[in-house]
């Protein structure tokens, strides 16, 4: 399976190279050797240190990561436009991520130990999320979510979300009875409508809500992370309590807050208008461009990226233009969250379905791990991480394809960027470690062996 994933990656590179430059990519052996070697190493590492883990997770991660590298290579090296993306960077980041991946598998034998430090995790998560607000932080494309370390810049929110899942798992495992049972019923006549939690139990919800809204949206303009964190929070509180009322309250509060801050946060307003009226001329073009009928507005206007992305998808149609055959350069920032449209253009609906299926499979295997585990903390943790992957995919691709407003985050594994890649591999490492522990056969009791011997003739 892993080999298949590697082969697919290399095939993608070859095709892109042939289509673009009419030659085999000269760096093919380098990439093939490095990426293939890494993936195979990871495979054997798993065989050795986590032999019972879900066998599908690594190939899926490899496939998605490999497709990402191939596409970045096609966007960058094949066109000679290295400002857009460098697949070499991505490859090195992949290697680093895989090392971290191996480290987690090796050192974190029992993920439940994480349960001991929920508040440290909480503080850590908040610290990471707020880090960009310090002088270290930098703003890119209107969202303040990067931390510049000089040699590289990281997006701490990528790691904060994992820490947050750890915290929520630990916290909710201890508090779930209170959150689930203490309630006031609201009835209309004899019909029970909702179980409302007690006021004081809504505190964590209120904190989370306040944090997401105020800090992320207002201070940092990071809608994507805000939406993702809050969604994951709701999912986890639902898993812990089984109560729909939490979701109702959470959604009401979240959307209520969105409506309330709508007039005051220009960034947010722009996103909404861009989403709803993407094809309105004044949204698509800037005013100066509109005044000049000859300008094609190829780079200006708020909805430019969204609409060009849709055009790219349309251009791809069912089967796509073939890797290297499209014109993904039309979509601004195509190497980031809009890399999805490049896949849509060149691989078509068929290719996109494969990608979505791979992601969905990853999520569902994760959920299966949650089901198979016995410990509550691990159940919470695994389902939380799986849902995080699913929701992140939904938020990004949904934004790109105009299902929901664009928020600007990255598809797990695929898009350019170190933090996102690293956090994706961390999530897979955690899932694999948990699945290994969940599926590991229970150690056989010595008495049974003895009993067997007695019956033996």
């Amino acid at each position, binding site marked *: 399976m892993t080999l298949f994933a590697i082969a697919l990656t290399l095939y993608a590179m070859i095709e892109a190279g042939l289509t673009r430059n009419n030659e085999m990519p000269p760096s093919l052996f380098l990439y093939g050797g490095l990426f293939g070697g890494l993936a195979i190493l990871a495979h054997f590492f798993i065989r050795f240190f986590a032999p019972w883990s879900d066998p599908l997770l690594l190939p899926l991660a490899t496939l998605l990561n490999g497709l990402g590298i191939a596409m970045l290579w096609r966007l960058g090296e094949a066109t000679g436009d290295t400002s857009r993306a460098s697949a070499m960077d991505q490859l090195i980041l992949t290697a680093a991520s895989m090392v971290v991946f191996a480290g987690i598998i090796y050192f974190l034998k029992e993920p439940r130990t994480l349960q001991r430090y929920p508040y440290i995790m909480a503080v850590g998560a908040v610290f990471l999320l707020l880090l960009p607000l310090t002088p270290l932080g930098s703003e890119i494309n209107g969202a303040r979510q990067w931390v510049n370390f000089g040699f590289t810049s990281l997006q701490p929110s990528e790691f904060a979300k994992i820490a947050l899942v750890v915290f929520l798992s630990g916290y909710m495992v201890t508090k779930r009875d209170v959150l689930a049972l203490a309630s006031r019923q609201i009835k209309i006549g004899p019909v029970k409508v909702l179980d409302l939690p007690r006021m004081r139990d809504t505190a964590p919800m209120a904190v989370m809500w306040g944090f997401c809204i105020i800090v992320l949206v207002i201070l940092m303009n990071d809608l994507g992370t805000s939406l993702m964190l809050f969604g994951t929070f709701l999912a986890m509180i639902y898993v812990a309590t089984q109560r729909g009322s939490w979701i109702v309250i959470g959604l009401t509060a979240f959307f209520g807050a969105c409506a309330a801050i709508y007039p005051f946060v220009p960034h947010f307003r722009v996103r909404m208008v861009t989403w709803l009226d993407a094809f309105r001329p004044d949204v698509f073009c800037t005013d100066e461009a509109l005044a000049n009928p000859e300008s094609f507005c190829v780079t200006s206007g708020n909805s430019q990226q969204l609409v060009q992305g849709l055009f790219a998808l349309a251009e791809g149609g069912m089967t796509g233009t073939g890797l290297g055959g499209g014109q993904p350069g039309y979509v601004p920032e195509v190497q980031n969250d809009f890399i999805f449209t490049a896949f849509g253009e060149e691989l078509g609906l068929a290719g*996109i379905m494969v990608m*979505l299926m791979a992601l969905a499979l990853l*999520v*569902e295997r994760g959920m299966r791990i949650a089901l198979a585990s016995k410990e509550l903390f691990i159940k919470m943790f695994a389902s939380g991480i799986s849902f995080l992957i*699913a929701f992140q995919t939904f938020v990004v691709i949904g934004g790109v*394809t105009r299902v929901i407003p664009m928020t600007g985050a990255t598809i797990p594994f695929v898009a350019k960027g170190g933090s996102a890649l690293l956090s994706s591999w961390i999530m897979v490492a955690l899932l694999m470690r948990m699945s290994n522990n969940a599926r590991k056969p229970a150690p056989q009791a010595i008495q049974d062996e003895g009993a067997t011997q007695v019956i033996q003739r």
Partner: protein
Amino acid sequence: MNKPIRRLSIFALALFGVLLLNVSYIQAFAAEDLREHPFNRRQFAESLNTHRGSIRVGSQEVAYSEPVGGDSDQYQRVYENGQLYAPVVGAFRAGSATGIEAAENSFLDGSHESLAVNNFRDMLTGEEPKGADVTLTINADAQQAAMEGLEALGKNGAAVALDPATGAVLASYSNPSYDPNSVASVTETDQAAENWTDLEAAEQQPLLNRGLNQRYPPGSTFKIVTAAAALENGASPDSTIDAPETLDLGAPLPNAWGGPCNNGAPDSLAHSIEISCNTSMANWAIQLGGQAMQEQAEAFGFNQGDMEIPLPVTESLSPLETDPNILGRSGIGQANIEATPLQMAMVAAGVANDGDVMKPYLVESVRNSNLEEVDSAQPEVYSTAISPGTAADLTEMMIGVTAGDEASGPTAQIPGIDVAGKTGTAETASGPTHNWFISFAPADDPQVAVAVVVEHGGGSGGTLAAPIAREIMEAVINE
């Protein structure tokens, strides 16, 4: 807590389901609309990378593509005699196209379905795909004569020449014209776009094809239609009607020279046409009635909606008049009558072709890159406007216009050949008169029918427009 986890995983799957459905919708169902969305410039960028076919006039390539060279995959469109052919050929630019470049785009860029086999063969043999060549019906000499004549006057105007027997457009020039090379550069796109913007904003409207898309009051050239209606409704060239010095049509309608047409006596139809009498022709229109007048105009092509030849042609108008005052004026091509130069050329061509108006067309043939003909013009009758007898009578009357004793358009005479013509000097709401001449020649064996209009020439049709028409006719006949 497995139950909520199951529900959550179903919800997660549902999220993926939504994405899948939406992507399927975009890529399968909405794709066509998105590809053709006006904001979508992908097609145009791609079109710069295709080797377009040539546009030919006779054996000359007047528009062709050549590789930009260097690292670029693009092709540069080159226009020979750009200004001469621009009103027909148009311009192919990064972003859009006009003229034949736009109307025949699917042939030129090779996307037309009839080229599919050829494209497939090229793909198999590894040949570079190339669009089909389009050969126009334009006669280079006639086109040249039209340009020179109109340019020499220095006025806005247009000339259209037709082959009356087939409908082939032999010349179509609109003054002023422009050089398509100045707006077609793919290497200096900013300059090209700026030039185009200047052309669009220019007061003289060089991008307007006046021959096909501008309506003018046809003035006295419309008297041919009035006379045709009279002949079709039982009159003969010798039939007479009152032709006083002025006619009281609300405001007085005088003759061009300020006197009666036949020394105060009723004037014959033939003589009225020869000297271009206003009062008698207005009387004919009133006598025939609005219905008959409109029917005759429509038989020549008025009020028939827009036409494609394949360039778009604006509809010419002849509304049904009930007020005798307005009807009288419309009988001499004023009031609400509006005609394109092509429409008036069709009137002349209909008379020349024994009453049958042929459908005008600009494309003679289309050949694929292997020089096989994939499309060729099939002349077809557009309408039967008048009977052959009426056509013969009108031809006689129109010869009188150029050769009669009191000819109003003698400047159209070609030595040794009978020329049938009609002058027109149309009053305009603003500025000096428009000057018209429509004609065909040789009268006994018509090879070419022409309409020339000079915008606000301020002279008479006989002095300004007729010499240009003569040059065009001579160019065709002497070939």
